[in-house]
């Protein structure tokens, strides 16, 4: 006997709106279906009517956690189209903010993971320390969330000596505290027992379903754009790609913990080796016709922006592939054979950013797997039946 349980688009267990439909057999999930479209925002269409500079601030608003990822990915691409080379100092500041953002995003996630696993003191400790990063970001850029530090050809704000000292001081504190908390986390048997073995994603599945970011790395697949296709300053920095081979939520926690520590290392290197000079070069108003693909390792995985220029000051086309989107097929796989009670934990473990994925395009044949292979005629019949039964919602009136 199997039941279908709808979760979302609004649900207390989910932090952002997404529709999930679980087919369960008792307590065990046998199939999962993910529906997007609840919160479609059409950013890509909007971008076609904005100038190159305006789009930076538009794409920055795709996400509230990894805002710098989208802005940087876009700016990297448009700089390549305009054949601009930003000054070294500007680049260092841009990617310094990128690594600080990764730290804040991962700390946020670790808190959420602790909370979902019922370890709320971990959540409170980690989020208290996340404030240190947020304060540093505010000091550097003037904002806590949408930093708006990128501009075409460099960055908008410079760093002075006092700020550099404050960053190093903050990172030293964070490093000490992080190591201590991570030691606590690793030695708290109930926490580890809760997350170990949950949401399994074997390596071959991760590869076949094209998982990205920490989700892929936790399955032992060392896939990181910063290492395999180093952009900007990353070939000058000394860091390692964090991986884990447990393929479960525990692995995903471990990968993010290791990454936070690697990011501290990178931040220290960048602050200490900050070159002198300008922070920005002047950018032309228009871009020559052409197209470019820009890749960026966001906290959640590989972020891809495709930009097509037609010679004016507006793009012909902008396409964003946010990392969360790449992780959905893998999530469906992770949910299968799991328990209902694990749904929030598994779902939180990919660090989903619905606002990134919902921005526009794409997703998922959520019914992946063999049982989903049906004939076209059957599909059509199902589709027609579904439409006949679907309630008319277009002109719905609020029942008073």
């Amino acid at each position, binding site marked *: 006997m199997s039941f279908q349980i709808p979760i979302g688009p609004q649900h207390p267990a989910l932090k952002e709106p997404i529709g999930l439909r679980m087919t369960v057999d008792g307590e065990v999930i046998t199939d999962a279906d993910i529906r997007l479209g609840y919160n479609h925002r059409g950013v*890509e269409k909007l971008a076609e009517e904005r100038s190159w500079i305006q789009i930076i601030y538009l794409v920055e608003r795709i996400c509230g956690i990894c805002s710098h990822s989208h802005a940087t990915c876009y700016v990297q691409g448009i700089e390549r189209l305009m054949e601009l080379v930003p000054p070294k100092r500007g680049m260092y500041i841009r990617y310094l903010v990128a690594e600080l953002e990764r730290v804040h995003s991962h700390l946020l996630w670790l808190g959420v993971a602790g909370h979902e696993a019922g370890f709320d003191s971990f959540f409170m400790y980690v989020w208290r320390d996340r404030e240190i990063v947020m304060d540093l970001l505010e000091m550097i850029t003037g904002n806590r969330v949408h930093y708006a530090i990128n501009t075409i050809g460099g960055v908008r704000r410079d760093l002075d000596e006092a700020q550099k000292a404050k960053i190093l001081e903050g990172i030293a504190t964070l490093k000490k505290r992080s190591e201590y908390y991570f030691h606590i986390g690793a030695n708290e048997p109930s926490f580890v027992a809760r997350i170990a073995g949950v949401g399994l994603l074997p390596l071959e599945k991760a590869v076949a379903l*094209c998982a990205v970011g920490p989700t892929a790395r936790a399955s032992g697949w060392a896939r990181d754009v910063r290492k395999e296709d180093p952009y900007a300053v990353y070939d000058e920095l000394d860091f390692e790609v964090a991986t884990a081979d447990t393929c479960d939520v525990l692995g995903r926690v471990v990968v993010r913990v290791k990454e936070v520590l690697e990011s501290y290392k990178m931040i220290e290197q960048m602050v200490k080796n900050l070159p002198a000079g300008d922070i920005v070069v002047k950018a032309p108003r228009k871009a020559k016709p052409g197209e470019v693909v820009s890749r960026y390792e966001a906290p959640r995985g590989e972020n891809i922006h495709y930009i097509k220029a037609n010679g004016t000051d507006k793009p012909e086309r902008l396409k964003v592939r946010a990392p969360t989107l790449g992780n959905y097929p893998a999530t469906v796989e992770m949910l299968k054979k799991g328990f209902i009670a694990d749904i929030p934990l598994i779902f939180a473990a990919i660090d989903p950013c619905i606002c990134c994925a*919902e921005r526009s395009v794409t*997703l998922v044949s*959520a019914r992946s797997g063999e049982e989903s292979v*049906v004939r076209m005629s059957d599909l059509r019949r199902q*589709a027609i039946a579904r439409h006949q039964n679907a309630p008319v919602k277009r002109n719905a009136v609020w029942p*008073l």
Partner: protein
Amino acid sequence: MTDAELIERLKADLGDRIEIANPGRRRLYLKVAPENLVAVVTRLRDGFGVVFLSTISGVDMFGMTVDHIPDPRPLVLPDDWPAGNYPLRKDWKFERPEEVIPGGKS
């Protein structure tokens, strides 16, 4: 598999239907003409095990016709999105439907 081997295999498989650019290590760009897109994508899915999410969005956003999609429901657009509206087409313009307020505006 190295980049060169992969390019070799892709060329043997897809011939002149694709244009391959390899601007950096582990970075392959395939350029496909619109009329070959569906054939190439199908081949990549069957022969190389590539998961294509973005292709399916073309159905929603551009009104492409693709056969054998396992799940024909709209992917990124809402379920009640009016049929025949493809928002990323250049000639598509958004018209806000008139607001229905029970009892009328006061």
